[in-house]
């Protein structure tokens, strides 16, 4: 029999339960780190409180009973006050949840309180997961599940070890006995109790839980009930400045210093990726005192009325062979969706409220998305022009009403007379008094700007009267993309060209691990679009010089190779993309595709296995048919001897690890007598229903196997007797079998 392991006492089980419960609370409140809810103070308070009572478990006993009596009303009052103060129900509920966790984590718990801790923690994690759609949620859910299962297991063992004793929080009889914890001693005891084989089995089973969860996730039938998520309505989020209808100089600079991921983009045909993609989000027309903004008139002219649905029809006609782009836009970026240009069809994963600018190739959601927003775009124009036949028509009839006003706005400079003179002088320098085409003017203006200004993330606008942009234009200092784009617009408009500022992202990196584009906030950019009447389209002009603007035009695989990111952050980003592709964006169609892929893979592997077995069979047959000689036989014998040696080694050295869970030397490996006795005991098996002589031999064998050496009977005699009794027993059994 195996040496008996110690058992944890009831007090030690209570201590373990206390530790696991506290850990679960800490794990749950960690959601505040990635949940965009203002609960940092509560989180810090909860963490500090739980850590304090983990170190000093007797402290909760010192809390007066009146505190426990008033706890619930106080928590309710705090929740109501919070709700009244902020008016946002979900953040208030999250804070209430943390408050309850704080209370439960710092007071003695009965079983129902332990269950409450699990439930509160699960709620917090699920809410955070739904609101953020973050990969951290997956990690936290796995950790939480493992921890909660261990917690429940210890609760069950504690209950089994002793019936539950009703003890209320704030019991005046003082702290329970188990609160005298020495964590070092407990760790030693737990280590002594733990069998590595059981731990390995438990780990394997938990891995099985993860696999089963994945299988269930794939297999759970999906029905599209056409309803949007309820929780998003109860929380609000503000987009990053720089991607809204108004842009002030300097705002993009802040974004450029942020290296976090803004969007991930999948494309079905990588050969059609532009060399330098410009992801357009918003066009701004109205300029006034250093600020560009989307004028209400352009908004009306550009965007349709608000609609609700999962599809957006674009201005482009269906064409074959164009790639499909799938965007995963992170939360907190903007309600304007980044796109390369006009498109044929845009499809959301869930129903959205949106306004679409079909001609301009822009889409705006009604609300800032609080979660990652996924959408798929088909038939998207990826060139550097945006056709606008309506604007061409309006230009041809300048006296027409309505949108014409926006045409005028797109030519309006919006500066004082003094500044206008400066601009006129600059335009004269650019054009040399000649009438230029749009393309020529653009090239000359870009050169003019590049000759006087360098790219800088710390632009210096000289102080003084007049328009700030004109001051910067005169000063010949460094500037960022906003200043370059704004200046170009003023110059072009002064020269009589309709021009607008476009904000969005430029470029991005190609993730080599997940094969997708990754846009970071540092890729935010502002450029211009100037209308070319000859082409009847808006032509992209990027006047920014330096590292962002002046890039060599490389196309195709070479462009991707230059953008390829193989860093560690790309590895983590690939996990995020996997999460979005396979989990978050998993719908009924993806489910069918996945199941079909699994079925195909299974059939394919089955076919390959059959082929391999057939090959193996043919190989064995051919091998047997070969002539047999001494060398061949010797080789076979050598292989057999090696296999036997391996088997012996397994039995002698590895087997005891598995059978006894410890080193072979400690179970008598070095003692042949104990080993032989062990073999005989295994041969005899259970003793029930044995004859008297077998019992006597069994007792002697047990003494040889486990007893002290000085109490041993003569081993050889015992083994002889065991052999004799074993044979007699076998004979008797056979005789009995013949009779029956």
């Amino acid at each position, binding site marked *: 029999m195996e040496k008996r392991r110690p*058992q944890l006492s009831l007090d030690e089980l209570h201590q373990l339960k206390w530790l696991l419960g506290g850990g679960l609370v800490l794990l749950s409140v960690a959601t505040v780190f990635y949940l965009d809810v203002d609960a940092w103070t509560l989180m810090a308070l909860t963490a500090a409180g739980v850590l304090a009572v983990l170190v000093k478990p007797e402290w909760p006993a010192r809390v007066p009973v009146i505190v426990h009596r008033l706890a619930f009303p106080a928590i309710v009052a705090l929740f109501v006050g919070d709700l009244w103060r902020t008016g946002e129900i979900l953040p208030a509920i999250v804070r209430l949840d943390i408050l309850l966790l704080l209370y439960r984590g710092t007071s003695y718990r009965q079983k129902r309180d332990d269950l409450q801790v699990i439930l509160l923690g699960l709620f917090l994690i699920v809410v955070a*997961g739904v609101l953020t759609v973050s990969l951290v949620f997956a990690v936290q859910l796995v950790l939480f599940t493992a921890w909660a299962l261990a917690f429940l*297991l210890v609760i*069950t063992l504690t209950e089994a070890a002793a019936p539950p004793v009703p003890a209320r929080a704030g019991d005046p009889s003082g702290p329970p006995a188990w609160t005298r914890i020495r964590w070092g001693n407990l760790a030693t005891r737990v280590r002594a109790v733990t069998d590595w084989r059981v731990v390995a089995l438990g780990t394997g089973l938990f891995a099985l839980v993860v696999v089963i969860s*994945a299988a*269930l996730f794939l297999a759970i039938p999906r029905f599209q009930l056409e309803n949007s998520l309820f*929780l998003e309505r109860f929380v609000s989020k503000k987009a990053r400045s720089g991607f809204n209808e108004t842009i002030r100089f300097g705002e993009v600079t802040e974004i450029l210093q942020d290296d976090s991921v803004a969007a991930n983009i999948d494309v079905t045909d990588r050969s059609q990726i532009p060399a330098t993609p410009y992801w357009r989000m918003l066009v701004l027309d109205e300029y006034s005192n250093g600020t560009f903004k989307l004028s209400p008139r352009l908004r009306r002219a550009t965007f349709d009325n608000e609609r609700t649905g999962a599809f957006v029809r674009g201005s482009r006609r269906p064409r074959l062979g164009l790639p499909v782009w799938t965007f995963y836009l992170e939360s907190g970026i903007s309600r304007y969706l980044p796109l390369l240009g006009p498109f044929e069809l845009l499809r959301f994963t869930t129903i959205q409220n949106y306004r679409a600018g079909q001609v301009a190739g822009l889409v705006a959601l009604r609300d800032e998305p609080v979660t990652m927003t996924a959408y798929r775009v088909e038939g998207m124009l990826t060139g550097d022009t945006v056709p606008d036949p309506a604007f061409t028509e309006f230009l041809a009839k300048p006296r027409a009403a309505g949108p014409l006003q926006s045409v005028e706005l797109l030519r309006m400079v919006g500066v004082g007379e003094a500044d206008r003179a400066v601009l006129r002088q600059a335009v004269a320098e650019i054009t040399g008094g000649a009438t230029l085409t749009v393309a020529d003017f653009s090239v000359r203006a870009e050169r003019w700007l590049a000759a006087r200004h360098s790219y800088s993330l710390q632009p210096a606008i000289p102080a003084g009267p007049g328009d700030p942009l004109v001051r910067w234009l005169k000063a010949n200092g460094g500037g960022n993309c906003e200043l370059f784009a704004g200046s170009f617009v003023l110059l072009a408009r002064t020269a009589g060209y309709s021009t607008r500022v476009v904000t969005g992202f430029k470029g991005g990196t190609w993730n080599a691990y997940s094969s997708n584009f990754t846009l970071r906030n540092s890729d935010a950019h502002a450029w211009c679009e100037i209308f070319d009447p000859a082409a009847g389209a808006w032509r992209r002009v990027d006047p920014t010089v330096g590292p962002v603007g002046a890039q060599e035009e490389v196309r195709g695989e070479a462009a991707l190779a230059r953008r390829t990111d193989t860093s560690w952050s790309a590895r983590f980003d690939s996990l995020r993309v996997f999460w979005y592709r396979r*989990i978050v964006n998993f719908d009924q169609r993806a489910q069918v595709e996945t199941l079909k892929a699994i079925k195909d893979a299974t059939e394919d592997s089955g076919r390959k296995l059959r082929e391999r077995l057939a090959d193996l069979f043919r190989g064995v047959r051919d091998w047997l048919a070969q002539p047999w000689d001494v060398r061949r036989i010797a080789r076979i014998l050598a292989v057999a001897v090696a296999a036997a040696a391996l088997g012996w080694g397994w039995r002698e050295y590895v087997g005891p690890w598995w*059978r006894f869970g410890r080193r072979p030397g400690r179970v008598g490996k070095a003692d042949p007598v104990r080993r032989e006795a062990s073999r005989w005991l295994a041969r005899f098996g259970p003793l029930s229903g044995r004859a008297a002589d077998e019992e006597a031999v069994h007792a002697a064998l047990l003494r040889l196997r486990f007893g002290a050496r000085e109490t041993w009977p003569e081993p050889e005699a015992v083994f002889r007797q065991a052999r004799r009794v074993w044979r007699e027993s076998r004979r008797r059994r056979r005789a009995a079998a013949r009779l029956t």
Partner: protein
Amino acid sequence: MTASPSSSARLGLWNRLLWALVFPRRHQRIVPTVSGTLLVSVALGIGTAAYNSANNILFITLAVLLACLVLSGVLSWLNLRGVEWRLDVAPPLRVGHVAVVALGLRNHKSFLPTYGLWFDVEAKPEQEGPPAAVESTITAKGIDVRAALARAEAVDARGQLVLRERLDPRGEARLDWTFQPVRRGRLVIDLVGVGSLFPFGFLRKTFTTEQRAVRLVWPAAVEYRRHAAASERLPAGSERAPQAGSGGDLWALRRYAPGDSHRLIHWKASARSQTLLVRQFAAESTTGFALALDSGATVWTRPEQFELLVSFAATLAEDLFRLGQLESAQINGEPPQPMRRVRDLEQFLDRLAVVQPNAESPAGGGSPTRLRNLLTFAPDGARGVIALVNGEKAASA
């Protein structure tokens, strides 16, 4: 298109397997606990929200919760697998005396321990005859029904044995349950069910077992009063009786029987005869009694008095045997059984455990008057019982 026989057989196997996984086996009962109900409710809520919002985060959470339930089932199966239990009731059982029911446990698993089992044990009198038909109409008042049920419950003893410690792999454990039988007769000790909350306490899994032990419960020992008149007329105890007893003189040799003391074995004689023989000693006293019990229903009309009679007879038989003064015992005119060994007395007590009022026995008849020192019994008033030696009052209870 029709399915081939092999494919339909395979389909049937899968169906059975899936059904076995989903539906509990026969004699199994699975009831969700508070935490289990909570888990199911949370899963339902999250599932509803997931379908309502088509949110994959909720679908993942739902999948994890369901997988936890699957893990719970697997661990519970592993916990119960390879565990053997055995009911062991040590005789004798006697009314009013503490009886010990032992449950032997053995874990045959190689490295997995077993935790948190409980065993529901029940001891109840064996039901005689076929089970009563189910009454379609109950005419008694509620209070009467409750009283009847309470009376029926009173004779049943129930207990729960809980495995509070870990049952190590290849280890054994013993759980004891004590109770006091309240009625003589055949007592059925049932291992009604085995239950477990392991591992996470989501489900209370119980299943019935076939473990059962039937034991006889001897009548209770009663206090009685001896009357000197009858014993004075008995002969003096100096002459040797031609019968076996507990004296010092060798009387005879006989074959060994189970229950005989090993010290009584006559080794030389056994070796010669190649058969185990034991010594019998002559009784030292001649004051032997022949106990005769008449269970005539016409004499013993009151059940309580009849029970007292049986208990009185058992007590007297035991006391007289201990003194070596019980020669024989008989019930209802059957041939007297010699009381030579402990086993004889035990057999008589076994008979007393199940004796019932005999409707065919004539009142006062059937007693063999030819026996010496005949010890008989008669009602003493409405409740008492007297013991008569040769018709004279010797003791009363």
